[in-house]
């Protein structure tokens, strides 16, 4: 008898998702209140939090927490991959581009063939790497804005307003991607509507795996005859 549910995310991964989600909310709220400082809602928010100084303090504290978190995430991912405890399942490959084209052809009704995905599909990889690279840019520019005196000892002064423009716009881009793309894929997409709880529960149904991540599903099933589960613990 097959198990109804398959373990997709480890406890650490679920905690990581929850942490980044919370930090994103805090950083987004305190950041956009500063970006749109003259909008009535921003002024209201800033006053509700207790003034711009406190908003900035929270934003910076959350930014430092995000930095620590990012270092932890990347280190542990690298460690697991390098010691072969996890497959580098998030690395983008030629297949992802082929999948994107196959999927586009499907959407355009040029063909009826679905792309077959491994553990993460090209959309998930796009969002993940967007998050990692965007996050690095946010960390770098954020620290430039936090320590302009130190930064301008090594870099031209103009880099500070550059950092401000980049930080502000990259934040907006991240917000739009999360609002439009992530919310669609995790909530509104017909495949998961109204809510894909897997990143919180760690589990997905067998049907879901078979349909959305068939390559990984087959690999797990092949392995499970020998070693049961446990091996599904993958990274990042």
């Amino acid at each position: 008898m097959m198990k109804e549910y398959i373990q997709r995310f480890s406890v650490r991964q679920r905690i990581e998702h929850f942490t980044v989600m919370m930090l994103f909310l805090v950083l987004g709220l305190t950041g956009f209140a500063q970006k749109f400082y003259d909008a009535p809602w921003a002024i209201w928010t800033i006053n509700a939090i207790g003034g711009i100084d406190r908003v900035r303090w929270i934003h910076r504290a959350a930014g430092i927490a995000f930095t620590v978190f990012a270092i932890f995430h990347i280190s542990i991912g690298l460690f697991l991959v390098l010691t072969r405890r996890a497959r580098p399942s998030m690395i983008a490959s030629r297949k992802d581009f082929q999948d994107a084209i196959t999927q586009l052809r499907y959407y355009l009704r040029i063909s009826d063939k679905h792309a077959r995905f491994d553990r993460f599909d090209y959309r998930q990889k796009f969002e993940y790497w967007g998050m990692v690279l965007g996050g690095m840019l946010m960390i770098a520019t954020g620290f430039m804005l936090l320590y302009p005196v130190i930064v301008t000892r090594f870099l031209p002064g103009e880099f500070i307003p550059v950092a401000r423009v980049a930080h502000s716009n990259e934040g907006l881009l991240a917000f739009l991607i999360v609002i439009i793309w992530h919310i669609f894929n995790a909530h509104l997409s017909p495949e998961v509507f109204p809510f894909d709880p897997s990143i919180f529960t760690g589990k997905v149904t067998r049907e879901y795996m078979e349909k959305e991540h068939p390559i990984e599903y087959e690999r797990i099933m092949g392995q499970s005859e020998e070693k049961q589960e446990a091996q599904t613990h993958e990274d990042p």
Partner: protein
Amino acid sequence: MSRKLLQYFVLLVTLMITSAGQAAPAAPDPPSNDDCLTCHGKPDASAKFTDGETLSLYVDRESFAHSVHGGKLACTNCHTNITAVPHPARQFKDRRAMDLTYYESCKQCHFAEYTRLLDGVHYAALEKGKEKAPTCVDCHGAHAMEPPGKPRMHISATCAKCHTAVGAAYARSAHAAGLAKGNPDVPVCTNCHRAHDNANPLTTASHLRISELCARCHTNEKLMAKYGISTDVLTTYLADFHGLTASLYRSEGLKPAALTATCTDCHGVHDITWVKGPGSSVIKANLLIKCQHCHKGAGPNFSSAWMGHYEPSLRHAPLVYLTKLFYMIFIPFVVGGLVIQILLHLWRVVVNI
């Protein structure tokens, strides 16, 4: 009563006698200006305060006639307690004590100015017992009053009587240079500080209002065009870190932990000079010194983090301009692509049904 006797009375009795003689003659007509000038028109008319200082009691007929009040007011309109000759005795410790007794006469007509004065720093100082704080006559004079702003140079000269250091600093400014040439566009003290209800300029609330004060002229296109000065100064300030911080501090109504830079912190308070002139406080080398006031340890590159009131362009701050441009293209490109993919996805789902 002979004239000699009258003079004797004025010299001896006025201000000196403490007791007796208080009973005034029964309400005669108040003396006319000519009556008063019989004695007060004599250049040697004088009296002594209890501290020994001599007060000249002389009033120049001509200068009063040409003053704003000439032909309009009688002496007794202000000197309301003088109803008869000889005057009842009064005793003032010194000149200041007398001034402080008389200045309230002005409010009979100038009530609005008087009530504004009550809101100002000068009255607040007076109320705390600082006798040197100015009242009406200290700025406007007494008998030979002229309209206060004619010429406008009088205003800065009047304030400088007490505020000597500030007056000297102002005299070095671009504004004072214009004033000296009779330019009506430049501000004098009262344009920023107001005349009667001057607020304390050293409070946080005042500091946060400075950009608003400067902007009154410096965002006036017509006025600034005459001098080739950009009117973007306010918007570029407000869009930057310091300016937006100041705006938010203002809207919070809380007392911020530290002040954020405003116009005067870089351009100087009273000795504001032409930014392109030599020794200007804002040309790069000098600007760094201003930055270091708050940003301790800032190096030579630091001050160019401020874009000098320019909107970023290929000429000014090109890297900032290009970064902005990049995101103006990149954000719609990425978001548009994602939206198209979502719409296609949904379309295919609908088609499948």
